[in-house]
């Protein structure tokens, strides 16, 4: 038997974060929820596995959508640090800016930010995708293992430090590259991937054929004292 879908509105200030999360967890797949009276609350919509749509009306604190594996989230506001941390699947679309460590350790899913993001975006990425219309702070994609970071604007210092297999595309300027990061020529596969991401994100100011690709130089994959590595 298929559960009936629901459409509900939850007042975060009135209910408290834990009750809101329990209410979200209880929703059948296909349902939708609107969160109001956010007031910067932390840990909203974390650890959810149901295929629901959540609209967050306001700016949140830490870890919005963290540890999620299923829902689609739209934020009309600016989330705090750790947006969508350890995301497994689903989409988070932010109509605003985001703070540090956006998408940290995400294994999958798609995070789209219409404004800027702060430092350490896509840190320790493990397969997720983060698309940022604007600028990205320093140390972004640090130790990123897999996945894609698309930056429509400029990237801060030490981009892609200690990268593994993740790839970064930058539409604007790169302040500096981190250790073992290098620029590479775009391949047809890169352009196709960027074009797809531009379509999904709606970032039509990004020309898929005119971005800087940053990937690992793979010189730190194995320790070698004779190459002056700081291992």
């Amino acid at each position, binding site marked *: 038997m298929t559960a009936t879908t629901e459409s509900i509105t939850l007042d975060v200030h009135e209910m408290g974060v834990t009750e809101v999360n329990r209410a979200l967890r209880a929703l059948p797949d296909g349902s939708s929820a609107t969160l109001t009276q956010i007031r910067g609350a932390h840990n909203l919509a974390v*650890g959810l596995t149901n295929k629901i749509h959540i609209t967050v009306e306001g700016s949140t604190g830490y870890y919005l959508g963290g540890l999620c594996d299923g829902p689609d989230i739209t934020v009309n506001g600016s989330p705090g640090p750790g947006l969508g941390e350890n995301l497994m699947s689903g989409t988070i679309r932010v109509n605003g800016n985001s703070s540090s460590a956006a998408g940290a350790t995400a294994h999958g899913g798609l995070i789209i930010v219409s404004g800027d993001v702060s430092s350490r975006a896509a840190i320790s990425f493990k397969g997720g995708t983060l698309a940022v219309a604007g600028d990205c702070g320093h140390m972004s994609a640090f130790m990123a293992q897999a996945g894609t970071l698309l930056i429509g604007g400029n990237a801060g210092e030490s981009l892609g430090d200690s990268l593994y297999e993740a790839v970064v595309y930058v539409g604007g300027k790169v302040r500096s590259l981190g250790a073992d990061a290098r620029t590479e020529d775009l391949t047809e596969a890169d352009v196709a991937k960027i074009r797809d991401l531009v379509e999904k994100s709606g970032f039509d100011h990004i020309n898929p054929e005119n971005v800087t690709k940053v990937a690992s130089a793979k010189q730190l994959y194995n320790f070698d004292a004779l190459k002056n590595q700081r291992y």
Partner: protein
Amino acid sequence: MTHQDNPALRESATFPQDMISMVQTMASTGRYEIRGWGAKRKVPNFDDLSFITASVSRYPLEGYRERCETKTVLGTRFASKPLELDIPITIAGMSFGSLSAHAKDALGRAATNVGTSTTTGDGGMTEEERRASKYLVYQCLPSRYGFRPEHVRAADAIEVVVGQGAKPGGGGMLLGQKVSERVASMRTLPAGVDQRSASRHPDWTGPDDLTIKIAELREATNWETPIYVKCGATRTYNDVKLAIAAGADVVVVDGMQGGTGATQDVFIEHTGIPTLPAVRLAAEAIRDVGMVGKVQLIVSGGIRTGADIAKAIALGADAVSIGVASLIALGCNSPFYEKDGVKVNVTADYHALGTAPGYCHECQTGACPVGITTQTPELMDRLDPDEAARRMTNYLKALTMELTTLARACGKNDVHHLEPEDLVALTIEAAAMAKVPLAGTTWIPGTGL
């Protein structure tokens, strides 16, 4: 010629043979040493304490007839489902990757046999480990290798690892020879890379952030699962207070004798404080914030015997964790492995690594002669998981019997009733660190008593 041949030869205390070898190796290779195990230097430890058991003024329990409770409950502060263990001895976090799947399986089964918990490590949770372990603690480490929400929900407790005793302030390592296809896949890494782990968490940076991080994990587990915070023993008093302020149910303190699968020797030998003062400092912190009986303390780092466990509990621990000792119980540093009832001598394999049984700390090579710290299939096969689980079960039972033997002799019908008053110190250093009187005196250095 050695000093036995010529008594006039004098070894330098500043440059003993092993130091000369280390300097010369660094000079020839440009590398420092990376190795397994914990600190090898002698530091003040639980051997420097002794129990003053029952006498005229105290009444002992009969060793084999009167019950001595060992049940240990962890996570009573906020979690709705605290862990109820049969014994206060847990298995410390050691990764699949550092350890073979057989070793993890054996540890899980042994822990289950005696009603205690085992712990994942840097690299995630394997199906075998979850299946084998009745109680499994899931580590949330800075690297988040293999960290998955479904495993968060499948865990019986979650341990946020801030640091470990072998390398407080440092990240982990797993050298390429152990990053097999399966290990690499679990960690989302290319096979064969020399994997380094981050030294700090990616999404929080200080105690205020940690408060929110713990709350996130509680939300993701519906406030059911105990949350531990593990710290390497450094600024222990303040760290424990901060972990409690951040909302930890259980604080784990790992002293400098704590082991590792691979870390710089300079870290292992020259960072942190010994387990002996760490347990006392942690217990003081818990007491000073009024959390005795609410926040539990687990202590690890060089725990080997029931005596070590009894002393740790007497100083304020609720439970201990064992790592290196459990590997030794499985067969680490044994000159042979046993297969189908046949003992096979592997001394030559130790020699090939430049070491010998009883001295080996070559976990980082992945060439473990007894199949424990390896990902090489033919070496892994040397560890029979059934036999290893049997040995580990025996060891845990023997530890428990040693623990209760001492508790009974102190007149306690529950091991958790052991207290600092049951102890004296045999050295001035231990008296100062543990804050118990020097034997035969009432003197506790540093307290004015």
